[in-house]
């Protein structure tokens, strides 16, 4: 039936010194009276109400210092004076205990820094709106092809025009398509990546140019002006930020063009790679409905919802489908907010990170709280002296709070440094893995977050030690405590509770990170189907402006002739380069992009229209399989004799052979590429499966066609396998290209190992981040358990001394202390296990070939933490076992 401790302490803190004792007494009396009259619960509630209704400012104005003349004014100035006194005193005590201060500051700065960094990223990527006008109304409109499972497909120009004409929920609709151009000025040749955009795209986004003007409707007409808008980055790198470039003629794809505008540096629509924008200048007559190369963006009309737009677009698509029976394409429409589209996969990953760092912060705070608690107890003599000299309890409590706040503010400042460092790390490690990463900066929001976190942390971990440490009778309660010293007073129960919580969080984090590590190991051990070592690739695209979408088949074939001749020459020269063991050409490259899929009709099969199988295709030169190290299982590779005039041939992979001709000889079978009446193509060989896009995918069916028989729209990769370091070959390749066509850029330079590596960058990034956090958590838990065990062993020195004096063996003492540590660890493990089971499901779609309940990972994670705990407890245990009974008994 005691007075509630917390409100009492707070009231004492709030009350003016003159009235403190009386108010405390009055409230105690009132509490007891009400306990008797109304029961304990009501009395407690009454007591809390007294706290809530304390009128601090008016109470403080009471200055009838009746007993103590001269009256002291408890003004703000005095308070500030006292606080600065406390601060200086705190500094001195902290400097006297540098180890304590360093451990606390390091722990705090990691906790606060990691949280600030992740918060900054979450804020920049997920929370901050996109930098367009009314960004919440901007939506993406995709074509879906349920048959192939495509959720976000490109759109053809006629479809886009029909959508735009019929939609009422979207007030505007624009489209853009990826393109590249070869830029040339004097000796400089480069290849730019950019987008062809409709004239209304920029008005929809509502971002004004930095200089000049944007692409507008008058530019966007067939055979319109050849104009470009440059990105800020390209303007800097290629033109040295020269404003005179506006209006100056430049040469793009061998044609004169005019720069009309420069965009601001933070404009990166639709993605960071974009270097220029040029009018689409689409021609409805020449662009067909099955040439899907556009992405469509729209703006919701006033008061229109996403759902309305989705419903409307679905019915619009169905009507267009019905009106164009010649192309029974069976597609749908998917409308999605631009922001959701941009952050897509990052969302879950970022919240997982945020959860993980929150764990780290809680662990860090528990640790610091524990350290402060332990230190508070050892500071008893000092506190006792101060109390004896007249320091009141509130003053002592304030001393503790000032010290903890001081530590957390310094820790927060250091934490900002840690955050900057971590953000830099993120920017490097995570480049390409997180959208909008280039927009991340430590802004005022993040600063406020760090400062707020520091102050809250200071108060949080300062409160407990302040309350316990300032009680002058702690010393007695320790000495007089009978029985088990481990579960003795409230303070040490709190300490143990904090350690158990820390261990639990560390277990959960370790299991989470373990799952990702395990999954990553499985992912990277997948065989890609080729040998990536010592292979370097580069892409070369000879200019042919007449070969864009919409060029007639005849024009295509005509252009193809010169192109094939160029590549034949280039291949011969490359093969002759010193150091090249094998060279080849290919249109696409595993993990390097430029993959395409086609409908095929194997001979003897009849498919419903629209139901034909879709397989990956590639166009390669004869030596491709040898250069890439892809085994030919049956049949033959392509040969010099496979030319345009000879029968059409193909090589297929195992999966395709199994798919159409299981248990049969696939070599010699025939299929057609495309849904029409194309020429029959004969299978002449079967090669091993190659993964093209992602190691987590099963290799699908695919076919290869010889480049001497095929047609393709732009450049090819030159694949070179060398017998030593491959990268040196690029300079030689550039020279060969220069001799064939001067100023033709060589782009997409990479080793095959790099391409493979980039393909797992995203899971590696997630795994590394979580592994780092869980590593920090384990280290902090180690520090925590070490600190608490040391402290408790110190408190039990006398008892242990007596035990040893009475004949306890050293081994017994050692085991006793270790057992104690183990009990704490196991309690933490049980809680952590529950947490892990509940939380790891958020990792579900980040795991490859692994369930979130993988027992091995759980056992490993738990074992890691338990062993860490035992190691941490071992030091204090050995010290306890080495206790000299005489000294420890003489201690007091």
């Amino acid at each position, binding site marked *: 039936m005691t007075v509630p401790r917390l409100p009492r302490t707070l009231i004492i803190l709030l009350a003016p010194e003159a009235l403190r004792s009386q108010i*405390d*007494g*009055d409230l105690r009396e009132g509490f007891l009276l009400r306990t008797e009259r109304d029961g304990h619960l009501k009395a407690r509630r009454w007591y809390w*109400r007294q706290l809530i*209704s304390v009128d601090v400012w008016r109470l403080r*104005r*009471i200055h009838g210092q009746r007993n103590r003349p001269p009256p002291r004014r408890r003004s703000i100035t005095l308070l500030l004076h006292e606080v600065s006194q406390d601060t200086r005193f705190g500094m001195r005590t902290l400097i006297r205990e540098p180890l304590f201060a360093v451990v606390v500051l390091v722990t705090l700065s990691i906790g606060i820094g990691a949280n600030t960094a992740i918060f900054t990223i979450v804020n920049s990527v997920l929370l901050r709106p996109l930098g367009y006008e009314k960004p919440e109304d901007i939506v993406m409109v995709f074509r879906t092809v349920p048959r192939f499972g495509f959720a976000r497909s490109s759109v053809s120009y006629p479809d886009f025009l029909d959508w735009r004409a019929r939609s009422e929920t979207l007030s505007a609709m624009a489209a853009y398509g990826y393109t590249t151009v070869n830029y040339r000025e004097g000796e400089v040749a480069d290849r730019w990546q950019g987008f062809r955009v409709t004239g209304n795209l920029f008005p929809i986004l509502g971002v004004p140019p930095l200089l000049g003007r944007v692409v507008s409707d008058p530019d966007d007409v067939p055979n319109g002006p050849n104009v470009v808008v440059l990105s800020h980055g390209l303007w800097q790198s290629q033109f040295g930020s020269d404003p005179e470039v506006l209006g100056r003629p430049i040469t793009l794809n061998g044609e004169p063009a005019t720069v009309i505008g420069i965009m601001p540096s933070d404009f990166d629509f639709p993605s960071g790679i974009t270097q220029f924008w040029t009018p689409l200048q689409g021609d409805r007559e020449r662009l067909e409905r099955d040439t899907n190369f556009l992405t469509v963006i729209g703006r919701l009309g006033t008061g229109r919802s996403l759902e309305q737009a989705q419903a409307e677009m679905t019915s619009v698509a169905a009507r267009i489908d019905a009106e164009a029976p010649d192309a029974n394409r069976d597609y749908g429409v998917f409308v999605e907010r631009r922001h959701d589209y941009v952050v897509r996969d990052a969302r879950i990953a970022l919240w997982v990170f945020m959860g993980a760092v929150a764990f780290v912060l809680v662990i860090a705070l528990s640790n610091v709280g524990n350290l402060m608690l332990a230190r508070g107890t050892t500071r008893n003599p000092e506190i006792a002296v101060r109390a004896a000299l007249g320091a009141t309890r509130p003053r002592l409590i304030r001393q503790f709070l000032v010290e903890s706040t001081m530590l957390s503010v310094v820790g927060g400042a250091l934490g900002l440094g840690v955050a900057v460092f971590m953000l830099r790390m993120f920017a490097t490690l995570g480049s390409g893995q997180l959208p909008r990463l280039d927009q991340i900066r430590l802004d005022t929001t993040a600063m406020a977050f760090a400062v707020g976190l520091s102050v809250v942390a200071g108060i949080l971990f300062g409160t407990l030690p302040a309350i316990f440490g300032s009680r002058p009778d702690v010393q007695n309660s320790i000495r007089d405590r009978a029985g088990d010293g481990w579960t003795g007073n409230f303070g040490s129960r709190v300490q143990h509770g904090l350690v158990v919580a820390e261990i639990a969080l560390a277990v959960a984090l370790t299991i989470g990170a373990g799952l990702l590590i395990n999954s990553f190991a499985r992912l990277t051990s997948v065989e890609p189907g080729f040998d990536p070592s010592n292979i370097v690739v580069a892409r070369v695209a000879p200019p042919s402006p007449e070969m864009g979408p919409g060029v007639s088949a005849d024009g295509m074939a005509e252009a193809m002739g010169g192109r094939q001749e160029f590549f034949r020459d280039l291949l011969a020269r490359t093969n002759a380069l010193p150091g090249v063991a094998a060279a080849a050409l290919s249109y696409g490259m595993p993990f390097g992009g430029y993959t395409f899929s086609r409908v095929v009709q194997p001979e003897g099969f009849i498919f419903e229209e629209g139901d034909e199988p879709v397989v990956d295709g590639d166009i390669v030169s004869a030596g491709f399989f040898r250069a890439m190290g892809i085994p030919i299982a049956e049949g033959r590779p392509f040969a010099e004799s496979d030319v345009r005039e000879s029968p059409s041939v193909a090589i297929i992979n195992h999966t395709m052979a199994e798919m159409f001709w299981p248990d049969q000889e696939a070599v010699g079978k025939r299929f057609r590429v495309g849904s029409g009446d194309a020429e029959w193509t004969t299978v002449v060989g079967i090669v091993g499966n190659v993964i093209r896009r992602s190691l987590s995918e099963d290799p699908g069916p695919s076919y290869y066609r010889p480049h001497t028989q095929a047609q393709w729209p732009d450049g090819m990769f030159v694949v070179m396998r060398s017998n030593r370091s491959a990268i040196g070959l690029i300079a030689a390749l550039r020279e060969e290209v220069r001799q064939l066509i001067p100023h033709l850029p060589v782009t997409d330079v990479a080793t095959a190992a790099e391409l493979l590596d980039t393909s797992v960058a995203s899971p590696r990034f997630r795994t590394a981040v979580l592994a780092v956090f869980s590593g920090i958590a384990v280290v902090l838990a180690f520090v925590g358990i070490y600190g608490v065990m040391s402290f408790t062993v110190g408190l039990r020195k006398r008892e242990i001394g007596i035990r040893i004096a009475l004949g306890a063996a050293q081994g017994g003492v050692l085991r006793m202390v270790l057992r104690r540590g183990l009990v704490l660890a196991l309690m933490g493990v049980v809680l952590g296990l529950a947490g892990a089971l509940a939380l790891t499901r958020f990792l579900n779609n980040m795991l490859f070939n692994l369930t979130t309940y993988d027992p091995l990972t759980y056992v490993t994670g738990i074992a890691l933490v338990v062993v860490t705990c035992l190691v941490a407890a071992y030091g204090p245990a050995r010290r306890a076992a080495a206790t000299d009974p005489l000294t420890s008994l003489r201690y007091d």
Partner: protein
Amino acid sequence: MTNEILGGFQQLVMLAVVRLAEAAYGARIQDELEQTAGRSVSISTVYVTLDRLERRGYVASWLADPTPIRGGKSKRYYRVTKAGLDALRQSREELERMWQGVETSLEAGPPR
């Protein structure tokens, strides 16, 4: 001083002090207000009001010995001074004069 008007709550606190006679201190005054006047007020309000009254000379106070029920804390007793009693009486007279004739209007409602 006596022509300063006492606030309603100040009157209640002074009346509580008078009613409690020799036993008027913080906790009791607070309880008296709650039990008799039905006013649940916080201890800080009680002290703020007592302080104001004391500075106007209407109440006087002295410290008494601590008692065990208060956890060894001392208590401050209050009594109403002569000036306080005068002010209280004056307030009551003012109020009574003002109340004359009001009861009937209250029953009849506002004039129409």
